[in-house]
């Protein structure tokens, strides 16, 4: 039954409405009727051979809070994502919306040529008039937290350094687009931390995981990227090497989202899913197996708030990052009480959704401000951007603090 289309899980719904009460989007806007309506209810009215009746499902942010709280196992977020894909496939979105969505959903395209002229491009893209033009013409909200391109992509740094000697075992690092072009500091920290654990880190050629395209209903483009990654990575998986990522949404895509949404259930997909790990998950499992070298961690004397992104909770792993962060001496940790920061990947960048995203995140922003922390810790890149944008408090990946504590 596990390879049945996700829509069949609608049979599990008993209409209890728990998802509606938990949905952060339905709580702040009337444009989204809620997960029960969009998922198990509307799915009974959808028919692949007929024009899509959907409009409101596009307001699902895909945060998966509904899936997490559903007591009967309805894959609501996935049902919604596939309904949006039908809208896209049938041309229910305007060309302008699709153009905007594709610009947002292809971070790699911009990054690949853009880093060469990063300062110029950053000045251009972040200028008031460019943001105003993108706001009006494309529908990318002028207030949304666009990241800044770096001059030296992560892999340029990685391949430009001497290979450390003496590693006994190997790990494959999946950096994702954000680490590559916007936040290579996360990748550098991850590599150093893995090396401190005695690993040789291999960074094979890879492409975007395809999640931004999946959450914008651009399934065919996402399929090409996913296939490409499977082709490039499955060989390592077959040799038994773990594939580790710092972007929780990328790793979730390889583990689960892409095969499930795209109905790709072949052996290669399954193998890659089995061998893919989030970095914190991986480090915690090393410790559990007694394989990590105990070191005296250096204190990091800061008060910090940790927020587990929706995409991380969807891994259903507990809170491995929190577990690791707790080992850092003098780190005064505040735990987030909120479900979602609102940004949900590309969602909060969209003109018609920016305000919704900010309202969704408000309880979290308030908590950050009220708790008086000097830094926010979060595993997902767009969440970090949103949090920093909304609160003015800098946001980092857990691995950055861990690397600091490890002194690497």
């Amino acid at each position, binding site marked *: 039954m596990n390879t049945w289309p996700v829509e069949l899980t609608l049979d599990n719904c008993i209409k209890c409405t728990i998802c509606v009460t938990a949905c952060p989007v339905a709580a702040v806007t009337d444009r989204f009727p809620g997960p*029960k309506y969009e998922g198990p209810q509307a799915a009974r009215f959808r028919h692949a051979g007929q024009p899509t009746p959907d409009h409101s499902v596009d307001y699902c942010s895909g945060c998966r809070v509904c899936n997490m709280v559903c007591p009967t196992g309805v894959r609501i977020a996935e049902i919604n994502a596939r309904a949006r894909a039908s809208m896209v496939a049938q041309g229910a979105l305007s060309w302008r919306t699709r153009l905007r969505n594709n610009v947002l959903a292809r971070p790699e395209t911009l990054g690949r040529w853009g880093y060469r002229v990063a300062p110029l491009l950053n000045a251009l893209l972040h200028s008031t008039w460019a943001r105003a033009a993108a706001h009006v013409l494309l529908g990318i909200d002028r207030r949304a937290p666009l990241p800044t391109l770096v001059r030296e992509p992560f892999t340029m740094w990685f391949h430009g350094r001497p290979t450390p000697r003496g590693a006994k075992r190997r790990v494959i690092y999946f950096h994702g687009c954000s680490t590559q072009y916007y936040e290579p500091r996360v990748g550098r920290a991850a590599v150093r931390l893995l090396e401190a654990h005695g690993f040789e880190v291999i960074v094979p050629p890879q492409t975007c995981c395809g999640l931004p395209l999946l959450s914008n209903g651009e399934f065919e483009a996402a399929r090409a990227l996913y296939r490409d990654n499977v082709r490039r990575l499955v060989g390592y998986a077959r040799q038994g090497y773990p594939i580790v990522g710092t972007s929780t949404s990328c790793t979730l895509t390889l583990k689960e989202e892409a095969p499930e949404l795209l109905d790709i259930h072949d052996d290669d997909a399954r193998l890659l899913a089995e061998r893919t790990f989030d970095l914190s998950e991986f480090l915690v499992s090393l410790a559990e197996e007694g394989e990590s070298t105990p070191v005296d961690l250096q204190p990091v004397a800061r008060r910090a708030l940790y927020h587990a992104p929706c995409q991380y909770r969807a891994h259903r792993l507990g809170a491995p990052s929190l577990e690791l962060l707790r080992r850092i001496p003098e780190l005064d940790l505040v735990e987030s009480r909120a479900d979602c920061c609102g940004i949900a990947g590309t969602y909060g960048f969209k003109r018609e959704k920016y305000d919704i995203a900010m309202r969704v995140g408000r309880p979290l922003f308030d908590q950050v401000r009220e708790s008086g922390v000097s830094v926010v810790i979060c595993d997902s890149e767009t969440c970090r951007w949103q949090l920093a944008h909304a609160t003015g408090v800098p946001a980092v990946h857990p691995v950055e603090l861990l690397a600091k504590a490890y002194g690497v």
Partner: protein
Amino acid sequence: MRGFDAILVEKRDLTHGTTGRYHGLLHSGGRYAVKDPQAAVECIEENRILRRIMPHCIEDTGGFFVVTPWDDPDYVPRFVDGCRRAGIPVEEVPVDQMLREEPLLNPHISHCFRVPDAAADSFLATEANAESARQHGARIWTYHEVTRLVRQGDHVVGAVCHDLVKDEEVHIHADLLVNAAGAWAGQIAAMAGVEVNIIPGKGVMVAMAHRVVNTVVNRCKLPSDGDIIVPIHTVAVIGTTDVKVSDPEHFPIEPWEIALMLAEGEKLVPGLKQMRVLRAWAGVRPLYQETVVADTRDVTRAYTLLDHETRDGLRGLITITGGKWTTYRQMAQVTVDRVCEKFGVERHCRTHEEPLPGAERAEYHWLGAPLARVERERAYGRLVCECELATEEDVIRAITEGQARTIDDIRRDVRLGMGPCQGGFCTYRAAGIWHALRRPRVTETNVALRDFLQERWKGLLPVLHGQQLRQERLDELIYLSVLNADHLPGPTVSPLAPVMYEPAGGTQRDGPST
């Protein structure tokens, strides 16, 4: 339409009987192509007409006849030949193509044929017919149960009815009485002292909670139990059994019938047994035979017109019986032709030419239409029945304009309570709206609520397993624990409550037992 002053009496709401309890198939006739060629011809003729006069009641799903590993491949040439003879368009569909259209079908199916089967909403179609009749001057009296026929010598001159709502007797004088009581036609005829041998053939149907298929799927073989799946609105209905019963009103749905439906359905859609069952229901076919037969499957599905003047020497009474939902219009046509003949007038039938009220846009119904409407009107905050997307406005209209007498009447108008939760979340809402609009005594609203819950429960009881059992447990907590529905003041049950599925003794069990 032909200028007669007509009164239609119905013992409950329209479609309370077999019309509202069938699987929703608009026959192409393919099902009868080999065994019952006369019925096949009638079906394809009417199929074409109904698509024209009531497209809004029909979803053009198309139909497949598939040969599974359990079916005799020798039936195929006979089937194709029978279809051609009856004038039913039939084309073979490659199995690859079939699986592209219906990915959940059994990949071991060897042949697939496409015929113009469709799904029909008999509630809506009946309402359209009734509305048309009203526009032509007919009076339609529901909740009027015929208690006796008035006979003067060898002439039937009227009927006495019991008005269940007002609890009073109503006398109707008529020049002619048409007995179209379906499975009850034998009982009506008996009131006039003539014998009409109707064999009530019970058929049990099982609805799956979602559209397992979007095409009507038939097994390509002689008709038998559980050989068809009809996608109708949001559900898929597996049909049916055929068991002779002695009473059209009291018959049970038996466990072996459910098990058989699911086992046969599994042959068409592997994994079906793991999917959620919505509910079960049963209807009684009005099978007519002059002689007594043992197996109701062998009785023709063609219709029969009995003129009791020529048959029994009794004037003023005509019985129309047998037939299918698909051929209802043709049955009415030949009946009224005979009525004209009786009165010596020549007025031509126009029912095959004039579209029914509601068909103005000449578009078929489509599955997503209710969702499209809710999305367009942003009515999602005003849903009463969330499963079937019935809005507050819909329910109010059913109560005020539709003259609903019970919550079950609202259901038939707007599909209230027909989805997976089976009234769990809409019954109390509908009862509240009902109470606000009608302002009855509280006890009346209480009993209306109870009647409807009981009606839903009876169709759930036979399928309480898996996900639907889980649902019913939640519904039980809502109504019995939170709302205390069974202890609210008022009578336990009202006289308007539907009578069904209760064994009253005398049920014959012809089918296999499991």
